[in-house]
Every structure is written in structure tokens, then in C-alpha cells.
């Protein structure tokens, strides 16, 4: 947003608002948003609890993630082990909490890589235009054709197995999606009147990009980023399920599911907790993304 709109939002002017027939603009209030959008509130609260569990796991988890209780292997939920134990007698709840760290780290890493590559690239090719845009768009199309997990598996096959390698590859697959959105937005914004005005006042290209283009073009990307966190989370779970992501004995939700599946006939209840953890977290990011979409663009109706 430009400076002028921000000031007008801070001090609503009833006269102009009435003249334009719009309700008087109000300053964005986080708490009012939370109150008016219960889904966003629940999702954000869930994510906050998850982040807390991930960070505080070493202090609040009932057991160490790799501590074995050899008298209680594949045990059902009990007062001692709230969610039971796995085939090595490790506490499922504790591993779930430690696994949430890897899940969030992986999602953040992949989306971060996607943003770092995709956003500048999209702005650059959209702003410069011409053959740069043409070439950049073809590169976007080419990378976009890769199924993200296939690319991630291929990169781990070359670079070596590990969560970080796999998620960098997923981020690389995300980059063209963000670049495409950012490019399209840049094309719209760069022809806007206020950008022309700034150019007229002698603003440099860098100033234009940082002060005007990026702040005004970034909104759809914020929505996309939130939705991508869910995709990245699912990718991490899947890759760890294939033992191409988080390596044992470190805990991950996908890896827990792989072990649970192995012993599904002995202890079927072990497959529920990690699965629901993945499902709820992906659902929370998706719901939050949709809520942000509605918040940023009031013309989009809910549902």
C-alpha cells in the first residue's frame, strides 16, 4: 500500500467515504479479524499450539523421543503412554511432539526456498518485460511440469538422502508457481497510475520495485504461501514415509506412519495419531490461507 492510502486509513475521512458511497475505511485489527472469522481463529490457535509443542518438545514431552520402554512395545494407549508406544517401545505422544518440529521446519524450508527464488524472479521478469519475460516464462513452464515429489526424490537420489535436500527440491518446484503469480501481479501493478506518478517524480527503478511493486503485488502470494505450507507438509510426510526424508531414529509423522503400517495387524491404533496430526495441520494451513484470501480481497465470498 502506498503511504497516502495508509494515512487515509488511519484517519478515516467521513466526507470522502460518504461521497464514494463506501463504508468508512477502518484500520486493520488482528483481533477484530479473529473475532469475525472463527475458522481463521481456530486454525491459527491450532498452529500456535503446534509451534509451541515443536519448540517446547524437549521440555514438555513426557518421554525422550528415543527412550525405549521394552516392557511396553506396541502398547495401546494407557495412563503411562497416552497414545501408546511403537514397535521399539517408544512413546508415541513424545515422538509426535518431536515430529512436529521436523514437519514445521520442512514446510518452512521448502516454502522459504520457493519464496527466495520465485518472488524476485517473478518481479524481475514482469518488470523488465520483453525477451527476459519470454525466456523467464518458458523456464517457469519447464520447471512447473515436474511433479514436486518426483523432483524431490530425484534430487535425493543425486545429492544424497535427507530431509533438507528433499525439501530444497520441493522448494525449487514451488518457485515457478510463486514466480508466475508474482509476474502476473507485477504486470498489473507496473501500469497503475501511482507507479506512473512515482516515475514522473523521478523515482528510481529499485525504489519503484521495493516501495510500490512488491507491496502491491504480494497479496495473492501471501495466500499462496500459506496454502503451500500444507503441500510442503504433506510432501515431508510422504518422503519420510518412503525413508527419503527425516532419517531414523529422528521422529517424523511420515516415518511414524511407515512403522505403524509395518505393524498394522498387531497394533492398528498406532496409525491414527500421526495421520490425524498431518491431516489437521494441512487443514489448518489451508483454512488459514482461504481466510487470508477473503481478508485481502473482500470481493471473494466465503466458500
Amino acid at each position: 500500500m502506498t503511504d497516502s492510502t495508509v494515512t487515509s486509513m488511519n484517519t478515516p475521512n467521513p466526507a470522502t467515504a460518504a461521497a464514494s458511497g463506501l463504508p468508512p475505511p477502518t484500520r486493520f485489527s488482528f483481533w477484530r479479524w479473529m473475532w469475525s472469522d472463527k475458522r481463521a481463529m481456530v486454525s491459527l490457535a491450532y498452529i500456535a499450539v503446534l509451534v509451541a509443542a515443536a519448540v517446547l518438545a524437549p521440555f514438555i514431552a513426557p518421554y525422550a523421543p528415543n527412550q525405549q520402554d521394552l516392557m511396553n512395545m506396541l502398547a495401546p494407549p494407557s495412563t503411562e503412554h497416552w497414545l501408546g508406544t511403537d514397535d521399539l517401545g517408544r512413546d508415541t505422544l513424545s515422538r509426535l511432539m518431536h515430529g512436529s518440529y521436523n514437519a514445521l521446519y520442512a514446510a518452512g524450508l521448502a516454502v522459504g526456498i520457493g519464496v527466495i527464488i520465485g518472488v524476485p524472479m517473478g518481479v524481475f521478469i514482469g518488470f523488465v518485460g520483453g525477451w527476459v519475460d519470454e525466456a523467464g516464462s518458458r523456464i517457469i513452464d519447464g520447471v512447473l511440469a515436474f511433479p514436486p515429489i518426483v523432483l524431490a526424490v530425484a534430487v535425493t537420489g543425486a545429492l544424497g538422502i535427507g530431509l533438507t535436500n528433499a525439501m530444497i527440491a520441493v522448494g525449487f518446484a514451488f518457485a515457478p508457481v510463486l514466480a508466475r503469480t508474482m509476474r502476473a501481479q507485477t504486470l498489473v501493478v507496473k501500469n497503475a497510475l501511482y507507479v506512473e506518478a512515482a516515475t514522473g517524480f523521478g523515482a528510481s527503478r529499485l525504489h519503484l520495485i521495493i516501495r510500490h511493486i512488491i507491496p502491491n503485488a504480494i497479496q495473492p502470494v501471501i495466500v499462496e504461501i500459506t496454502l503451500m505450507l500444507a503441500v510442503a507438509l504433506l510432501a515431508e510426510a510422504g518422503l519420510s514415509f518412503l525413508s527419503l526424508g527425516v532419517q531414523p531414529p529422528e521422529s517424523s509423522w511420515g516415518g511414524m506412519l511407515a512403522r505403524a503400517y509395518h505393524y498394522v495387524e498387531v497394533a492398528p491404533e498406532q496409525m491414527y495419531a500421526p495421520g490425524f496430526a498431518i491431516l489437521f495441520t494441512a487443514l489448518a494451513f489451508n483454512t488459514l490461507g482461504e481466510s487470508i484470501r477473503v481478508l485481502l480481497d473482500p470481493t471473494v465470498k466465503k466458500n
Partner: protein
Amino acid sequence: MNGIPGMIARRLIQLVPVMIVATFVVFSLVYLMPGDPAVTIAGDYATEERVEEIRRIYGFDRPMLVQYFAWLGNVAIGDLGRSLFSNESVLTLILARLPHTILLVVYALIVGALIGVPLGILAATRQGTTLDKVITSVASLGVAIPNFWLGIILVTMFSLNYRWFPATGATSFFEDPVKALYFATLPAIALSTGVVAVLARQVRSALLEVLGSQYIRTLRAKGLSSGAILWKHGLRNVAATMLTIAGLQVNRLFSSAVIVEAVFAIPGVGNLISYSALNKDFPVVQGVALVLVLVVILTNLLVDVLNSIFDPRVAATT
């Protein structure tokens, strides 16, 4: 050139740079390998001659672009190298497994359409009701549920508990199509959730748009029944939506298929690439990535062409 042939020609020309980028990404994977790639590719017990031979075949002593085009030349004649373990031709390995993966993906698309489209129609024709809200919520679950977890649940319920379906394995579609479909049913359902969700949403909004449009209102005013309007006019637009979504989803389906194949022990290319990545069989990994990205690009071309046949406006504008 105009019309559909012109559109196909333009698409094919646009495809060349996309193909170059995609193949270059696959090619450059070799540079990610730590150490001397020739030594890595040759495997642990390779002789010095074998390493030299690989260095010569891949041309690691030449400039990168020269290497790329040399590699591309080999790819063009179907030479994707040999597996480090079985020494089998990578292309042979892939071609033997690709039908399983394609069957799974196509089957998942069909299952997704069979569930997603009716859900979308129901939601649109009963807009605002509880049913509409339930369907919208189901769609949200569909994009958030891990496919492989659903696969595990399906195996536990329908294979281990009820023994209705086999838990794992696959049969060749060419030898016994019925049995192949029977084996692929649970995996296809597990894989289809994303398609169900996206189709239900898109069909709903596409239908709502059509049903709210001026010409439908005119038809209604002329006395055409709701059912006739829905079948004759509403669903024509749905066909185009389905095609576009199939094109967009094919990439995600191959992504998830890699993991779903592991759950059901399906001997497809997804299992091949993850097994080969675990065992550092680089030529196979590279070959599968190449074949899958080409399959995705060609599928999108096919979708574009079909779309322009169904809707001539598309051919005119692209």
C-alpha cells in the same frame, strides 16, 4: 494459421523451450552428485576401465552444454543408460513399470470424476443448504488428507478386516484387465482425494456461474425444466472444467503416486524411483524423472488440444 491445426502447431512450437528447460533440469541432476560423478555412477566395485568408460559416455571432460546435447542425443534414441545394480537398460526398466503407474493415475482421475462431479452438481443445485456445506467441508478434507495415510486406512479396513480387496500388488492391465482394475481399486481411491475435492469445488462454481447467467434465465422464462437446463446447458461447461482440471492434476497425481505405490507395493515407476534413490542407482532415478516430466508435458498438450476441439473459442484465443 487458424483453427485447431494452427493451434496445435503453435502449441508444439511453444513446447520446444519448455522441453529444453525440463530436460536440462533432469540432465543437471548429475552435477548435484557429490564427488566425481563418474565414480559414483560406476558403483562401488567398478574397475578403473568402467569409470573411464562412464566418463567417456557422459562426457564429463567436455563443457556442460556439449554434455547436455550429447546426453539429449542419447535420450532421443532411447538410450537412458543402465541400472547400476541390475545392469539392465533404464528404458526397459521404466517401460515395464510405466503402465502400472499410468493405470493408477487414470483410474484415480476416473474415480475422482465419478465422485467429485456429482458432489459438485449436488452442491450447486442445493446452494446454501446443509448438504452444500457438508460437500464443501468434504472438499477441504480431500486436499488436506495424506493420500498414503488414506491408503493405509483402506488396506486395514477393506483388505485386512473384510478381505474384499487385495492389500498389495498389481496385475498387468494387458494380460488381465479386470483383475488389474480390481488390484488398482483401493490405490486409485486413495489417490483420488485431491481430484474429488478440486472437481467438486470447480464444478460447483462453474455450474453456479452458468445457472445464474442471462441465457439460462431466458431458457427458464421460456419454460424449460430445471433438469433439462442442467443436463443440456450446465453440464456442457462442466466437461471443459473436468478436462482442465485433469490437466492440472496430472502433475500432483504422479507426485502422490510415488508414495501411494509404496503403500500398495505396486511395481510402477514411482516405486522404481524411490527404491533407486534409496539405493543410489542414479541412472534409473534420472530416467524416471525424465520420463515422468515428459508424460506431464504431453498430457497438458493433449488437454489443450481436446479443450480446443470441445470449445472452438479456446483455439481462437490461444
